[in-house]
């Protein structure tokens, strides 16, 4: 394209961007307006129904009508924001940033990039090989692979919506620390020999050949909207289920039912939660009904989060996929290191909250 046509094309484009920005601002204002009136909305909705507000059912319904839009709205906002931010990152670019990085700094960068880089567990294996064979140290690669699925926008958005921003921020901090430390430990152990042989033989040189797709700011906003569509379509049913369960518990079940089993006083509940989480395989959205139900019944937050992290970060099916590139010994070390980290997070959380 010649420079002339470019300067020609710019004015209408700038106008369009301004329009989109104005639309975005209006949308955010409307979002905030609705969000701050949700309690009134749910009370109004219950008052329309032939149910006594003071009854168990009235209580459960008010909770459901308040919590469902609240969680969906927060989730949509977080997913949209992350969706836009993620258009600035790609696994290929992340790999170039991490390639040849020293451990320590590399682990911190990898964990941070793990949160920001778009990642799907279906491409965990190509990503793993791609990183290792391009000269990203093994421990740094693991920091990325631990952070990416565990600290994601769905987990953060849902924690934010269901339990509050303090817990969401603490989860982010602990999840990142876990990824950094576990990756660093794995790197210190010098386990490069424990990769499958064929993985060691692949080496990629000059992978910079991929041309960047030029995206305008409008494209990025559109991709953010796509992300909201995709994720909300995937998780809304789980959220409704979870909140429905939470509402039932809120209305009917006595609060202290589970305190004795999963409360902060039962020290063994954290390891039990981690063990229980390993054979379960689901994404952050799938655990939410369980998390909501556990918290509703008075389970301690640390125990519940340890369970959630274990379900997401340590799963048998994913181990079986990774078995293609890692030897059993290496998988064993990975599980041991990550499980210890989750235990620590669980105990610490129980202490803090």
């Amino acid at each position, binding site marked *: 394209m010649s420079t002339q046509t470019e300067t020609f094309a710019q004015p209408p484009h700038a106008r369009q961007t301004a329009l989109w920005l104005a639309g975005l601002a209006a949308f955010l204002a409307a979002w905030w307006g609705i969000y701050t009136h949700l309690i009134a909305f749910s009370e109004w909705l219950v008052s329309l129904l032939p149910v006594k507000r003071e009854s168990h059912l009235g209580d459960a319904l008010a909770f459901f009508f308040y919590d469902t839009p609240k969680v969906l709205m927060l989730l949509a906002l977080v997913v949209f924001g992350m969706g836009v931010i993620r258009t600035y990152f*790609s*696994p*290929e670019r992340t*790999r170039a940033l991490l390639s040849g990085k020293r451990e320590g700094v590399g682990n911190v960068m990898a964990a941070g990039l793990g949160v920001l880089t*778009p*990642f*799907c567990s*279906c*491409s965990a*294996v*190509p*990503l793993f*090989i*791609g*990183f290792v*064979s*391009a000269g990203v140290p093994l421990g740094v690669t693991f920091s990325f692979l631990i952070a990416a699925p565990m600290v994601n926008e769905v987990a953060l958005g849902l924690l934010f919506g269901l339990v509050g921003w303090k817990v969401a921020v603490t989860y982010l901090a602990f999840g990142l620390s876990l990824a950094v430390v576990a990756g660093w430990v794995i790197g210190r152990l010098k386990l490069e020999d424990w990769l499958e042989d*064929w993985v060691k033989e*692949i080496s*990629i040189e000059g*992978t910079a*050949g*991929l*041309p960047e*797709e030029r995206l305008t700011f409008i494209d990025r906003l559109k991709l953010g909207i796509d992300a909201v569509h995709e994720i909300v379509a995937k998780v809304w049913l789980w959220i409704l289920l979870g909140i429905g369960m939470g509402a039932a518990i809120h209305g009917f079940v006595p609060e202290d039912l589970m305190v004795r089993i999963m409360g902060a006083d039962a020290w063994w509940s954290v390891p039990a939660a981690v063990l229980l989480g390993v054979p379960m395989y689901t994404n952050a959205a799938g655990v939410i009904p369980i998390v909501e139900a556990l918290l509703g019944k008075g389970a301690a937050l640390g125990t519940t989060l340890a369970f959630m992290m274990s379900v997401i970060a340590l799963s048998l099916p994913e181990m079986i996929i990774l078995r*293609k*590139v890692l030897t059993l010994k290496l998988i064993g070390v990975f599980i041991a290191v990550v499980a210890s980290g989750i235990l620590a997070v669980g105990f610490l959380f129980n202490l803090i909250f």
Partner: protein
Amino acid sequence: MKHVKVLGPGCKRCDALVTMVKEAANEYGIEVSVEKITDYAEIAKAGVASTPGLVIDGKLVHAGGLPKPDSISAWLAA
């Protein structure tokens, strides 16, 4: 005749990309052969770290997620 390779272990998006490529080729009357690469070693060697990846006549043009349909037809026409 364009030789197109779609790299991916067989996720939903990989199949979607194959369909998109065929549709774009049909629309613009470009002859293509589409090959699906599912072997992890092959995928990694192409420099792809996020699937699906798209290789046209031996050149990697896209990796990760689905490209815009316009981009596909532009790559095929190039």
